[in-house]
């Protein structure tokens, strides 16, 4: 079985934010929530890099480990999903996540944050694949249709890669070999406890 991962080649990201827009549109993500974002480090200085980041679907995911109601589950493809029916909006996943992925629909205080929302790797949720309920809660389930996440699919510079971890790591390795440099797979050490040697 494939182990799905994201890989952002920071040396190719041009901070166009197409991945962010594609994600918002594909899943009709509510106002104020960004399942994916592009962060520019050392902006305007020599050596600046932009990295597109969303939920990394970690190995031994911290969110799943700390959830008080155990609403997370990992699919056979290694995608970390959660049930909004079980989520109580406590905010614990959000303290544990290294990537700032969990978001809450209400900027709300008094603990009325609402159900947590995050990147689903375009794989929906626990409801029946492609059902109306699934779409309303989690957005499109492209994986069930045999498609990869839209953010990576439409990345204009092919900086953002999505797919089986082995394959995208191989693509990245070949790139680095060909052009002679690479700043590494951002977040991989934290998410998967491994890096791609380049």
């Amino acid at each position, binding site marked *: 079985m494939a182990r799905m991962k994201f890989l952002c080649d920071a040396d190719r990201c041009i901070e166009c*934010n197409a991945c962010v827009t594609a994600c918002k549109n594909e899943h009709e993500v509510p106002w104020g929530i960004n399942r994916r974002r592009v*962060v520019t480090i050392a902006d305007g200085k020599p050596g600046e890099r932009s990295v597109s980041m969303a939920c990394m679907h970690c190995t031994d995911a911290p969110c799943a480990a700390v959830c008080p*109601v*155990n609403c997370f589950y990992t699919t056979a493809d290694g995608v970390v999903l959660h049930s909004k029916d*079980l989520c109580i909006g406590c905010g614990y996943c959000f*303290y544990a996540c290294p990537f700032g992925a969990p978001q809450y629909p209400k900027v709300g205080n008094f603990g009325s944050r609402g159900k947590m929302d995050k990147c689903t790797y375009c794989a929906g949720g626990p409801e029946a694949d492609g059902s109306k309920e699934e779409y309303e809660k989690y957005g499109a389930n492209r994986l069930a249709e045999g498609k990869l996440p839209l953010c990576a699919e439409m990345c204009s510079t092919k900086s953002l890669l999505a797919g089986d971890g082995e394959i995208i790591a191989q693509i990245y390795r070949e790139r680095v070999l060909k052009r*002679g440099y690479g700043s590494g797979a951002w977040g991989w050490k934290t998410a998967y406890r491994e890096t791609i040697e380049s």
Partner: protein
Amino acid sequence: MSSFARFIRPAIGAWALLLLIMTAPAPSLAQQINPTASSVNERQLLQEMDRIQGRVSIPDQRSSVLMQPAGREWREFRNVALRWIGGVAMLGMLAVLVIFYLTRGMVRLESGRSGRTIVRFNTYERVVHWMTATCFVILAISGLNITFGRPLLLPLIGFDAFSEWSQWAKFAHNYLSFPFTIGVVLIFLMWIGGNIPNKLDLEWIKRGGGLIGHDHPPARRFNAGQKGIYWIVVIGGGLVAVTGYQLMFPFYVSGIEGMQIAQIVHSVVAVLFIAAMLAHIYIGTIGMEGAFEAMGSGEVDVNWAREHHSLWLDQELARSGPNDSQPRPRHAASAAE
């Protein structure tokens, strides 16, 4: 000599020119080969800051933190350390209380009941106490559910029921924090007068507070043990309130790392608070004869007061007489305070 100089001068010039040509283009060539040599580096950034922050063009500026692996330590605390601290503190206290009850038994009224009573806590004090106590019990149960519910309760009742219950417990936890905080503030204000530690407390502690043996060290309105409980409530309650509100209002006070620290302080103080309150509940109910009445009806037996709060009783009696068989009018009772 001059012919030799004529020969060597162009030779030196040619050498110098060659050296210049060879060294000059070298640095620019290296830069073209590896542009990442001077770029930001993930490993280096994480070593420097323990997190990576940049700039985002979306309105949500909090999302500018790209990575903060510190959540891993927090996870370890929440899933392992906190369960040990809480388990040892609460079960340990429970065990101590059971052993104490079985060996020492209830602290009896040695001189028996006199039949005369004296007002110990007026209606206002009792209302504040029970409001805070009720909130505390619900806050404690709903809080423990967050830490211990998943391993202990979830397997028993299943996902749906457990989520439903936890959702209500969370709302109760968040909203009852307000009356609880008010209660803690009122307790702080109304009993601060009798709770300043003094020399009498040392004497009381030295003599085992009457818990060990059958001694009755003198005490004013609050003895050293009660002062301890008072300060646990005021300081512990203050800490859980402050950290709790910080978690309830995310990003008002701090970012994620601040909230992780707040959760650690909140939960550790809370489990220790619960352990202390187990002892408080014990001594106020089955642990001591005649003690519950102080917070129940508000009036204690004069003999109880003489045994446990001799100096306070003398003071009260000097001001006004004890309640003889007839109940006194309410306003007089409050005046006695």
